[in-house]
């Protein structure tokens, strides 16, 4: 890893860490509130998998949702802020390659996603006891999911010229895809049409595969989830690197 890449990665991590209340504390609290409300209302009424309480089912979904949203937020908000304030010039003037640029923003966003995800998992330990059937799948989907959303964040951050464009991307693309991916329910509880729709949502595979790591059961095979998530990551990486290599909206 080059010094330039390490420095840019360090700067991006330092940037969110310096405002940790906002970037780590707040999403952990939000996820905890989701858990308290939903589990209180639904715990005795819904059983998703055999022998798994609704609260237990919900926690991996909340962990992954927080992880994904924060990975996206990190890369996208850092880039849009740098573009709007003009300090993006500090990373465009030095001899940093577009691959190093991509790697630094994505890795930093994955780190933030994992930190927030771990935070949500830690605070929910007091309320729910979870099994850990396949820990490697947990780590695999957490990291890959974070990387996918981090790449999407780089694309959104580069594409958006204004904060409201980025907010629109977050609210009309990321949020619906996350909420309609089975965070709060198993897609088997949906009507056939919505089950079909869910199967074209790559977020569903990330969350379903992640959940498999805990319970050893899922809506689809973890290998299929890994394939879809891996394919999504490759496609997004290719698209992002292509944008960066052309200097799209960064180098006129």
């Amino acid at each position, binding site marked *: 890893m080059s010094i330039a890449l390490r420095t*840019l990665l360090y700067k991006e991590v330092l940037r969110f860490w310096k405002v940790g209340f906002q970037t780590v504390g707040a999403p952990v609290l939000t996820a905890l509130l989701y858990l308290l409300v939903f589990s209180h209302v639904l715990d005795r009424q819904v059983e998703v998998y055999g022998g798994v309480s609704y609260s237990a089912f919900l926690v991996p979904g909340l962990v992954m949702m927080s992880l994904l949203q924060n990975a996206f937020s990190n890369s996208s908000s850092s880039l849009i802020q740098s573009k709007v304030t003009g300090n993006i*010039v500090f990373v465009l003037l030095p001899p940093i*390659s577009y691959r190093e640029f991509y790697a630094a923003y994505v890795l930093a966003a994955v780190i933030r996603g994992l930190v927030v995800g771990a935070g949500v998992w830690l605070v929910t330990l007091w309320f729910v006891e979870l099994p850990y059937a396949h820990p490697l799948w947990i780590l695999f989907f957490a990291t890959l999911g974070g990387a996918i959303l981090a790449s999407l964040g780089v694309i959104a951050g580069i594409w958006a010229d204004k904060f409201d464009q980025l907010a629109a991307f977050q609210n009309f693309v990321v949020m619906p895809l996350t909420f309609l991916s089975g965070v709060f329910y198993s897609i088997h509880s949906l009507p056939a049409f919505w089950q079909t729709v869910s199967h074209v949502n790559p977020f569903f595979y990330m969350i379903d595969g992640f959940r498999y790591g805990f319970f050893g059961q899922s809506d689809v095979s973890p290998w299929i989830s890994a394939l879809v998530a891996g394919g999504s990551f490759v496609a997004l990486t290719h698209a992002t690197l292509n944008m960066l290599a052309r200097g799209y909206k960064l*180098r006129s």
Partner: protein
Amino acid sequence: MSDPSAALLIDGVCKRYGSLQALDHVSLTVRQGEFFGLLGPNGAGKTTLISLLAGLGRADSGVIRVMGHDVVADYRDARRNLGVVPQELVFDPFFTVRETLRLQSGYFGLRRNDDWIDEILHHLDLHTKADVNMRALSGGMKRRVLVAQALVHRPPVIVLDEPTAGVDVELRQGLWAFVRDLNRQGHTIVLTTHYLEEAESLCGRIAMLKQGRVIALDNTTNLLARPIQQTLRLRLRGDVALPADLRAVARATADGRVALVLENADAVSACLARLHAAGVGLEEIELVRPDLEDVFISIMREAA
């Protein structure tokens, strides 16, 4: 293309933004160790040219080299050899001055650069602000940090894009003393400024741009020696009238003198001979030396 050892080599560079031809076949060479001025009115293409040099934009055609390194094909070495002080007062509000400079060093592949960072901070009178967050600095201080950021990797070529815009006199003088020092140490300096007196006193050579074209490129001394309009200020003896042909180019000044705007130095001697022949007595004669601003205006008019 000539002089491959030039600090900057710009050859046939064109850049278009939509219907605007920002740069139109710009060619110029800046030699190593020069203090070079890039002048022009707003929209002339100065900042566009600097953006292309720095890799912030890409030329549609032409070649740009920094210390012999092509800014596209060999961008890493080109950028290592170049320090740019941007025109906009930009900063990252998350970091202190020292963090900002350490990060900038790292981007250029430098670790443990604190000795040099301390030296820059000292020269720019920023050492007391090293651990202050960028947000808490005044505009002038932020400008100094921008200069420091451009110097962290000790680039042989330094480009300053209007570095003294909105800066107080004290900082301006301090900044120029420091930049002169860097130039004496062998750094090539390229300066754009709207303060023409600064360019006149600092730059050995100047290029003037207008509408994306180089319309003048010469030594500052040669530019100042150009035959341009001269202003002759006279105090007439007694209540006498100027000859009719001179009245057309004369105007009264606030202090009771007469100012005559003449085409060139030859016209000055012809004017004095004409006054002598007409019997006009003179108490005082002052020939106002044209400065770079006069030359600039004259060249811009010629290029119109």
